[in-house]
Every structure is written in structure tokens, then in C-alpha cells.
């Protein structure tokens, strides 16, 4: 028996899940936006401030040494969690957005030439489009969108067909935040590798839901964010092949990223510290370490199995609702559901669902090109996590029916 089988005990570890919203128990279906935090994470953050607060990697006193151990310990935990080969491959960042910008500016821009191509799918989050556009605009390179299908799946052959001698990087989301689609990233990574094209995988929506093994994937860059992984905001990572990190120039200059500074010339620290200037979000990363410990104890396989069950229950429930149109029908999908409802705007549904205690996201989910592909300005998105329940799915369905009656 896995710990996750006692779902009441699991939920009791997440204090936010006990909240009453407008007189109703909170049904938190906005996990793709940000996940709730277990007591263990909150206690780790609080414990850092109340017991260990000191700066990392420079103070030799006890508090500084404790802070450094806890902070660097989080890097080691993350390394094991994603199956990276060494701790030097883990650059701690503020999140996925910073990780991708780091690759765009430090890895790609120095060698990008006019006519070079950056290939990304049409289902990317803006964070995996706009940084590439910025460096492309500076250098005369172009960002090429790879096609998706009406089901909201990647057109794998279409993406591979767009790889050519001008392609300098392939960027692809592991799991679509807007559609829930799980992409066949290994196929794309292998196809790109066969053409000596580096790959960047956006794992923001994947890491919270199933086991990641970056060494087996053999991608060049894997990026993720901590706040969707039950950790504090302002934490994330770039997991990169060591050879790339050695070759890349620093992205931001400052303290901690240097070896020796003089006005005649400055030499830089080794990776990953070369890319981590200034005092980092120490408490946040200690929280991330605690989140990973917590996930390891519950087990990612048990989490994935429970979420697969919840996904199937939710999918059946959504199919039963007349006038509701699910956007995307990927055969491999996470428990993330975008939908529109006849005669009701996504924002109205989301505000009124909140009145029933149900938290969902509405809008474009930072995926304008995906929304344009489906001809929609906005959708409602319900995204589940392992701590959600079948009773919550039933409460969501009842609340949605009530909202529709109001707007009719």
C-alpha cells in the first residue's frame, strides 16, 4: 500500500486544501497554474528563516554553513529527482522562464546568424516562444512553428520534416499547459540528435506528475519550475549537458559567479555557479528540496497512477456535460482539461465557479498560438493533482451546472 492510498491523510498535509471559499470547501483545480504546498515545504522555509538564516557559499560561520548545506542539498535532491548525471548540470534559476532565457541568450545568441532557425511546436507556452523571438530579432534568425493536429497532438513527422541544416535548436514542451497533451519527446530528441540539433524540453507541466529521467531522454536542456512542483515561487532549474554549460558565457554578472575579478579582466566560476550570480532564493530552494523529499516519500509512480485514474474520471464527467466542448483530444494526456461552454464566456465561468469554491483558470494560458490554432480567445482550464478527489470532480460538475443556469 502506498501512502497515497490514504488520501485524507495526504490532503491533511496541505493546509490550503481545508480552506472554505464563499462558504464552500475549496476545490483546487488550478494546479497547472501553481500547486499547493505541503506542511513539509512550509516548515522547511519557515525553519530556514527561524533557525538557519545566513548567506550561501561565502559565510564561514555556522549559520552560513547550514544555509549552504541546505541550499546545495536541494541541488543534489533535484539532480536525483530528474536523473541528471551530476550536480554541475543543475543550474538553479527563478523558474522555467529564466532557464529558457539563459539558454537563448547564453547558448544560442552568441553563434546565431541570419537565416538560422529555431524550431518550436505550435503548442508552446509563451516562455518557450518569446525568448527565441528576442534573440532571433537581434540576429536575423527566425522562429519556425511546428504543426499540431486537430486533436491537439504534435505532428511528429511534420516537426521532424522541418529540421534542417539551418535549425539551431528544437524547443518542445513535455506536457502542454493548455491542452494536457503529453508529447513524444524522446522521438523528437532522437530525431534532432541524429541531425546534431540541440534540444530543449520544457518540463514545467511534466515534473509534478510523473518520473523524469533526463539522462535517458538525452536532451541537451531540460527546464522546470519549482512552484508547480509543490515548492515556493521563484525557484526552478536548467538541467543541461555539462559540455554546454562549460562552453556557455555567463548570462548575468555579479558576485558568486566569478573566480577572480580585476579591472584587467575577470575569470568566472565553474558551472553551475557561473550562472548563479548574487544571493539566490535560499529559502525557496530549501523549500524545493523539502518538496522533492516529500514527493520521493510518496513515490512518483504512485502519484502518476492516481492522477491517471483522476484524469479518466474527469474525462468521463466532462464528456457527459452537454454544450461543453473539450479543446484537444490527445491520446496521451495529463489531467489538464481546457474547455469552452456554449453561451458562456470563460472568465464568467471562472469567476462564478469561484463563488462555488472551485478554483480554475480562464484565459489564453500564455499560449496565444495554441488558442489561435483552435480559433478561440480563451478557454476554461481545470487541472488536477494527486491530492484532488472524485468527490471534488462531482462538486465541480455540479458547480458548473449551476453557473450555466445563471448565465443562461
Amino acid at each position, binding site marked *: 500500500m502506498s501512502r497515497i492510498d490514504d488520501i485524507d491523510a495526504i490532503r491533511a498535509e496541505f493546509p490550503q486544501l481545508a480552506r472554505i471559499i464563499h462558504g464552500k470547501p475549496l476545490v483546487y483545480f488550478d494546479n497547472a497554474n501553481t500547486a499547493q504546498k505541503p506542511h513539509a515545504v512550509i516548515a522547511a522555509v519557515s525553519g530556514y528563516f527561524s533557525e538557519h538564516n545566513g548567506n550561501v557559499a561565502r559565510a564561514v560561520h555556522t549559520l552560513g554553513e547550514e544555509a549552504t548545506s541546505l541550499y546545495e542539498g536541494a541541488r543534489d535532491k533535484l539532480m536525483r529527482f530528474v536523473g541528471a548525471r551530476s550536480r554541475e548540470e543543475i543550474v538553479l534559476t527563478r523558474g522555467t522562464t529564466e532557464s529558457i532565457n539563459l539558454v537563448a541568450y547564453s547558448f544560442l545568441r552568441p553563434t546565431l546568424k541570419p537565416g538560422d532557425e529555431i524550431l518550436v511546436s505550435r503548442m508552446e507556452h509563451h516562455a518557450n516562444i518569446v525568448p527565441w523571438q528576442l534573440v532571433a530579432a537581434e540576429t536575423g534568425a527566425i522562429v519556425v512553428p511546428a504543426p499540431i493536429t486537430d486533436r491537439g497532438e504534435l505532428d511528429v513527422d511534420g516537426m521532424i520534416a522541418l529540421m534542417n541544416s539551418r535549425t539551431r535548436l528544437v524547443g518542445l514542451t513535455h506536457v502542454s499547459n493548455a491542452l494536457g497533451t503529453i508529447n513524444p519527446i524522446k522521438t523528437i530528441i532522437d530525431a534532432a540528435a541524429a541531425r546534431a540539433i540541440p534540444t530543449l524540453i520544457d518540463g514545467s507541466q511534466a515534473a509534478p506528475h510523473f518520473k523524469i529521467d533526463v539522462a535517458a531522454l538525452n536532451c541537451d536542456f531540460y527546464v522546470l519550475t519549482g512552484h508547480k512542483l509543490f515548492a515556493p515561487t521563484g525557484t526552478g532549474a536548467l538541467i543541461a549537458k555539462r559540455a554546454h554549460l562549460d562552453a556557455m558565457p555567463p548570462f548575468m554578472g555579479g558576485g558568486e559567479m566569478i573566480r577572480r575579478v580585476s579591472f584587467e579582466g575577470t575569470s568566472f566560476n565553474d558551472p553551475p555557479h557561473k550562472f548563479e550570480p548574487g544571493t539566490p532564493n535560499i529559502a525557496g530552494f530549501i523549500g524545493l528540496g523539502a518538496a522533492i523529499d516529500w514527493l520521493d516519500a510518496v513515490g512518483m509512480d504512485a502519484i502518476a497512477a492516481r492522477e491517471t485514474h483522476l484524469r479518466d474520471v474527469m474525462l468521463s464527467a466532462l464528456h457527459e456535460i452537454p454544450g461543453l466542448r473539450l479543446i484537444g483530444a490527445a491520446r496521451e494526456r495529463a489531467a489538464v482539461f481546457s474547455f469552452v461552454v456554449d453561451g458562456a464566456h470563460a*472568465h464568467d465561468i471562472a469567476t462564478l465557479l469561484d463563488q462555488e469554491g472551485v478554483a480554475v483558470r480562464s484565459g489564453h494560458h500564455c499560449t496565444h498560438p495554441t488558442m489561435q490554432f483552435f480559433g478561440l480567445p480563451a478557454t476554461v482550464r481545470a487541472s488536477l493533482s494527486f491530492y484532488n478527489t472524485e468527490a471534488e470532480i462531482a462538486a465541480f460538475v455540479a458547480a458548473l451546472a449551476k453557473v450555466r443556469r445563471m448565465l443562461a
Partner: protein
Amino acid sequence: MSAHPSTLYSETVLAHNRAPKNCGSLVDATHHGVAENAMCGDHLELSFRVHGNVIAAAMFDGDSCAITTASASMLTEALRGASPARIAELREEMLMMFRAGPLARDDFAAFADLCHHPARQRCALLPFDAAIAALQTKE
């Protein structure tokens, strides 16, 4: 901390949304403006027929949420027969209401609860932005 029970979707707002006033295209428009809500991608167009210093007619078009639709319906009603300067005054009154609570007058008071929904204030302001854009661009 307890969540505030919302009165945003009042009967006034829902009635304007169900049967919006002045929805459609305006023939012989002299001014036409567009505004977009970056948060949801909503797109609203607003047209005026201005004679002298008076808005003789105002119509809006677009596919938007209930808050934007109701606001556009109320705004186009309020502007008929008014001077174009009235748009900025009404917008300022809306902003005051978001900060300080309801101004006890007309249908716009229905939006007072937006002070508790900062993310939705933009929805109610969208028709005002389209109206201001319209004043700056002639047909």
C-alpha cells in the same frame, strides 16, 4: 481571511448581458475604435456617430464576457446625447468606484463589487478604452 461573497453577477449585469443595448454595427459611423483584453483575448469594437459636440448614436460589437458586454451596453446607453468628454468622466467614476465603493447612481453601480475582483476590472474598462480609441480615430 475570508473570501468576500460576490455580488458582481447581479441581475442588472446579467440582464444587460442577456439582452445588450446597442449591440451591432452602426451605419454612418463617424468614429470607430477597438480595444483588446490581453488577459483573455476579448476584442471589442465601438462606433459613434458624432454631430457637432454630441454623440448622436453609439453601438458596440464583439464577443466578450458578461462583464464587458454589460459595461458596453451601459456605456453606449449613457453616451447617447452626451458630449464626447463624458467618456473620460465616466471612466474616472468607474476607477473611483473600484477604489472607494459604489457611487449610488445608475446601472454602473452594479460594477461596485469589482473592487473585490481586481483581475476583472479590465473587463469593465474595455468598452471605455474602445470609446477613447474611437475618439482618436475617425472613420
